């Protein structure tokens, strides 16, 4: 998953805060500073779980405080699920 795929999903699932440019260099910006609280992230990762048929642990999602950390975690899970397939 790429950053733009992730930001598109965030936008779709939880909207976009005013004054935030999700298309800018946001890879290491805290999700909280992008206007996304834990519920917004949960809503988005729930959608990713469905779309990609993977499971993301709530605890690990909660630790992913930036798009980079979240992407790393998602891509790791995707790789594991492809290996298993």
């Amino acid at each position, binding site marked *: 998953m790429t950053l733009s795929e992730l930001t598109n999903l965030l*936008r779709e699932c939880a*909207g*976009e805060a*005013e004054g935030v440019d999700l298309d800018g260099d946001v890879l290491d910006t805290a999700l909280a500073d992008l*206007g996304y609280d834990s*519920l917004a992230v949960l809503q988005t990762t729930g959608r990713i779980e*469905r779309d990609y048929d993977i499971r993301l642990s709530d605890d690990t999602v909660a630790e992913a405080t930036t798009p980079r950390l979240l992407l790393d975690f998602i891509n790791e899970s995707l790789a594991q699920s492809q290996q298993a397939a």
Partner: protein
Amino acid sequence: MTTPVLERSAGSPQRARTALFTGIGVAAPNGLGTEAWWAATLAGTNGIDRVTRFDPSSYPAQLAGEVPGFTAEEHIPSRLLPQTDHMTRLALYAAKEAIDDAGVDPAQLPEFAAGVVTASSAGGFEFGQRELEALWSKGGQYVSAYQSFAWFYAVNSGQISIRHGMRGPSGVLVTEQAGGLDAVAQARRQLRKGSRLIVTGGVDGAICPWGWTAQLAGARLSPVNEPDSAFVPFDARARGYVPGEGGAILILEDADEARERGARVYGRLAGYAATFDPKPGTGGEPGLRRAAELALAEAGVGTADVDVVFADGSGVEELDRQEADAISGLFGSRGVPVTVPKTMTGRLYAGGAALDLAAALLSIRDGLIPPTVNVERQAEGIDLDLVTAVRPHPVRTVLVLARGNGGFNAAAVVTAD
């Protein structure tokens, strides 16, 4: 035996503070925004029509008051769209209008000086229906994380509080259709305890199949499907009521603080009381009259001082008669002008009495009593001075009545100052 809720301002730590209305925001079936709604109300414009939010063809009741011209994307921040029911969006609209109207900037207030107390009857039913359908048809993974709060009674108070940064005392009142008055009374209690300003009132609505089914089960919805005769309280043709969505959000402010900042004042919450009806089957008088008497007593005004009564206006024959008896018992036959502007909106549940308060405040401002529409002939034994065309009349003191299913009665007295 009724159980009155008496309002006492004496005794510490509460102060005898005066509560003033300084802002109004409206989302109503006959107008979005205070001035659009008020102009439509004075013109007698009926907002009741066939349901459009879902296909009502297979239901015995097919009319509702739906708020016109509301495009959520134009009024609600993108972050809030995925997490809000339709009625919460209407509440957020009305809250912003009320806060802007009051000319306050919540960010400039001390952190805990302002709170939010609204009324609710059902929560976000349309949102809840969608997510529960997802649950049983597709599975738990398809249920929105926002279902965790979007259908709660307290959701409007919460969302308004978060959006405007108001972290003072907040909550929700659930007393069915009496809630609009009970919330404002709770707001006044918070002012007496030291809050500066409370965002209050109520915006409600459950015009979706699930909400509709629940309302039909109450057996009080009108089976008449003609918009100009379906909801005619006090009329010989009354067959029940038409539900609607919307309501009003009001800013209730401590008088000292309001005067200090030079706020424009619509009126004062001068009296309030709530009572419960006697247990069904035990006889005894319903509690509405007693609520009105207690509210007038607290306001220190006699019946002769009241310029107009905004009636609850049930539309259910027996309840109409009870209310007419209460009003005529207090004021005498045709002893006071009575109006039911909800004939133009349907009954808005927790939003209904809040909208009546807004109408009462604007009646005071403009010296105009808004009409009751579509009522042609009062039922036998009912003899009210029903205002059926807008009536110019100096208005300084208004009695607002509200009842909720389950025995709730509330009365509020609003005065010019």
